């Protein structure tokens, strides 16, 4: 069964949704195992004495003791439940809640693909993803699946690709081949291809290829005639990124997710499994759901665009940078000292390396909102120790995408007096080294 149009909308085979659900759940369960095996649950959520919660969500705190391991255990079990299609909605709900809770604990651990995991889990919660090849379907029988379910997920994936492509339409990426040129240099020692990777122009060619791939992927995948060949490109592209870059499960997730663009019954054709009879036409999309979806996608379009409202280079100031599919567009190195000045004008230099984990430090040194959060933490610490009130100044230097270093934060500004929020941050100094493209205009 491919697609059948009935009086209440198109009915599709739920097989491709089922395969995606199984792959998604399996991948998420595997991810928990690799986090535990690598010790990251401890390193990221138990060891830190300071966290960087999101603005307004400071009340979300890590659980003490073995609590975080328990949370990851819950994520694992829920992911297995999703893969098996056991109490699928409940499993998805638990997975979504626990996974998103972990992701909201610390901004320094933000990853675009984990944001995508939360979005996909949230969408799947309302979609008929367990009508085929699930324990739920075995128990109560499969129900018809509306084509809209597939299109919702395809639209989400399409947005990710398009915005990831648009994020690469910048001079650094298209004219300097940065940051790929920097990253490829790390692989100079690979057998055979290593010496090629650092040749002039290779990073630039790969940058253009990556940008064009992202921008065109949803369209080539949506078109029946280009889909099979382009899926091979998708697999090749993501395998290369998996081999060259440290981006975890993202390539595998995208290879799994893009199978949703194939005909809904592709798994039956591949695995030669007969269709399971379903009962009647699919439930149409309720009116409220249509409105909710329109709102959802309006938000999904608006949120990535918000970075442009701030002006300047978002890779530099990072305002509106998260949740915007700015995937692999920058390499930053930095260093920041904090100077705490008491009421008598006496200064103390604070090295954040003495308090933060290495990952937190690496992230904080280049991200202004994390620098602000740490400055607030220091002000509170001095206050708590009876040594406040104090001024906190940041002496921070950053290099972006191969540029020479420059100051990131205005050292004259007392960050203890600055509030976080969505308003433009005037205390972030503008990037004064444009790309060669801008320099030569």
């Amino acid at each position, binding site marked *: 069964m491919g697609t059948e149009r009935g009086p209440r909308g198109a009915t599709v085979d739920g097989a491709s949704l089922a395969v995606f659900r199984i792959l998604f759940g399996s991948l998420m369960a595997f991810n928990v195992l690799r986090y535990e095996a*690598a010790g*990251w649950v401890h*390193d*990221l959520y138990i060891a830190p004495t300071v966290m960087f919660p999101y603005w307004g969500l400071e009340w979300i705190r890590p659980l003490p003791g073995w609590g975080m391991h328990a949370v990851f255990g819950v994520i694992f079990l829920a992911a297995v439940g999703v893969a098996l299609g056991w109490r699928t909605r409940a499993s998805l709900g638990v997975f979504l809640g626990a996974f998103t809770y972990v992701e909201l604990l610390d901004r320094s*651990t933000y*990853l675009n*693909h984990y944001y995508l995991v939360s979005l996909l889990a949230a969408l799947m919660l309302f979609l008929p993803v367990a009508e085929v090849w699930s324990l739920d379907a075995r128990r109560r029988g499969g129900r018809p699946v509306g084509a809209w379910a597939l299109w919702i997920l395809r639209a989400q994936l399409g947005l990710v690709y398009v915005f990831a492509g648009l994020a690469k339409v910048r001079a650094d990426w298209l*004219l300097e081949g940065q940051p790929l040129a*920097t*990253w490829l*240099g*790390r*692989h*100079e*020692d690979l057998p055979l291809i*290593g*010496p*090629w990777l*650092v*040749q*002039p*122009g*290779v990073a*630039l*060619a790969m940058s*253009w290829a990556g940008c064009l791939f992202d921008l065109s992927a949803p369209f080539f995948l949506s078109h029946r005639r280009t889909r099979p060949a382009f899926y091979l490109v998708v697999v090749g592209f993501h395998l290369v990124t998996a081999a060259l*870059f*440290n*981006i*975890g*499960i*993202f390539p595998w997730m995208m290879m799994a997710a893009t199978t949703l663009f194939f005909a809904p019954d592709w798994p039956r054709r591949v695995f030669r499994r007969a269709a399971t009879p379903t009962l009647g036409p699919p439930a149409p999309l309720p009116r409220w759901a249509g409105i909710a979806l329109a709102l959802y996608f309006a938000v999904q379009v608006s949120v990535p665009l918000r970075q442009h409202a701030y002006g300047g280079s978002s890779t530099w100031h990072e305002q509106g940078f998260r949740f915007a599919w700015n*995937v*692999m567009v920058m*390499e*930053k*190195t*930095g*260093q920041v*000292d904090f100077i705490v000045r*008491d009421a*008598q004008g*006496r*200064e*103390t*230099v*604070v*090295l954040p*390396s003495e308090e933060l*984990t*290495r*990952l937190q430090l*690496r992230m904080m040194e280049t991200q202004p909102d994390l620098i602000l959060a740490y400055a607030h933490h220091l002000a509170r610490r001095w206050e708590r120790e009876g040594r406040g009130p104090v001024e906190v100044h940041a002496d921070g*230097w*950053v*290099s972006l995408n*191969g*540029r*020479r*270093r420059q100051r990131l934060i205005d050292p004259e500004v007392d960050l203890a007096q600055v509030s976080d929020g969505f308003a433009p941050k005037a205390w972030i100094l503008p990037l004064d080294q444009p790309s060669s493209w801008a320099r030569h205009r």
Partner: protein
Amino acid sequence: MRRLFFALFFLFGCTPAESFDRQAMLESIGLEVVIPQYELLVERTVALESAAATFCAEPSADTLEATRAAFRSAKEPLKMAEPWAFGPYTDSPLRLGPEIDLWPGRAATVDDRLAGTDAVDVAAIEAAGGYAKGFPALDHLLFAYQLEALRDERACTYLRSLTSQIRGVAEELLAAWAPSGGDYIGLFIRGETPFAGVQGSTSVLVEQLIYTLENVRELKIGKPFGKRDSGVVQPEAIEAPDSGRSLQDAEDAVRGTERAYRGAEGEASLGVEDLLLARRPELAPEIDAGFQRVYDAFDAVPGPLAVAITESTTEVEALYQAVKDLQVLFAVDLAQALGVTITFNPTDGD
């Protein structure tokens, strides 16, 4: 468009130019800088042990001064090896760092040991806590006590035990790194666990250079100078208070950083600088100037540091700033140019 054309040309149409061999760089640094540094440490600690034995056999102002000179000389390779203070130095089961250089020392621990009845033979000192042994303990015993006090048999036994214990740890360090021993240098060169490949070793190397400069800036200079506590000087944080070698210790650590950066002498030797010259040559002169500013600033501070932190504050402030400038240059510009990941915790990115 022209760039794109060239990109495709290079991709498919020609043989790649010779690329930089980072493993050869690691090998050169490992075998021509790290191992010789520890060999020198062993050689000098053997000389120190011998000088102490001579002093105890013939206590005199001359033999005491010879022992003190041997101490200063032995400290040089130890401080120059600070960029290599990882692996056998910090990690269990060896964790040799606290055995040889747990600083700032605790004078009271040495005084109490000397005045007490606990054994001070080599075995007892080897088994003692970190503050009772190693270079910091010897710094206090050898320089805070004068000839008459050191003539005492117990003092001399403690002195000889300390020099023997230090020599033993130096030999352990060399053995742990040497290809003929624990071969930690082999793991480093080949990028094997705990190093994540050649890139991982390169990252650790650059990170250690940055870390060493940060230690010089903040722990060796900044902390005693009051930078860490509202401007209140902290003489107790000085690295080598009794020998007055603190400034030299700090300068040796910077020189050790420079040695790792430049590589060993000789045309065939490679250092981090060679990698930088292959990637971003325009940065190298700035780093050269940065090192020179640091050495000039050291020269401008009249020692010892214990006095300078209160009486030569302008010079110490200039030294602190010069080291900071060099550290920022390494941590931001050099790290960016070499594409190193400044972290030991390689979680996922993006």
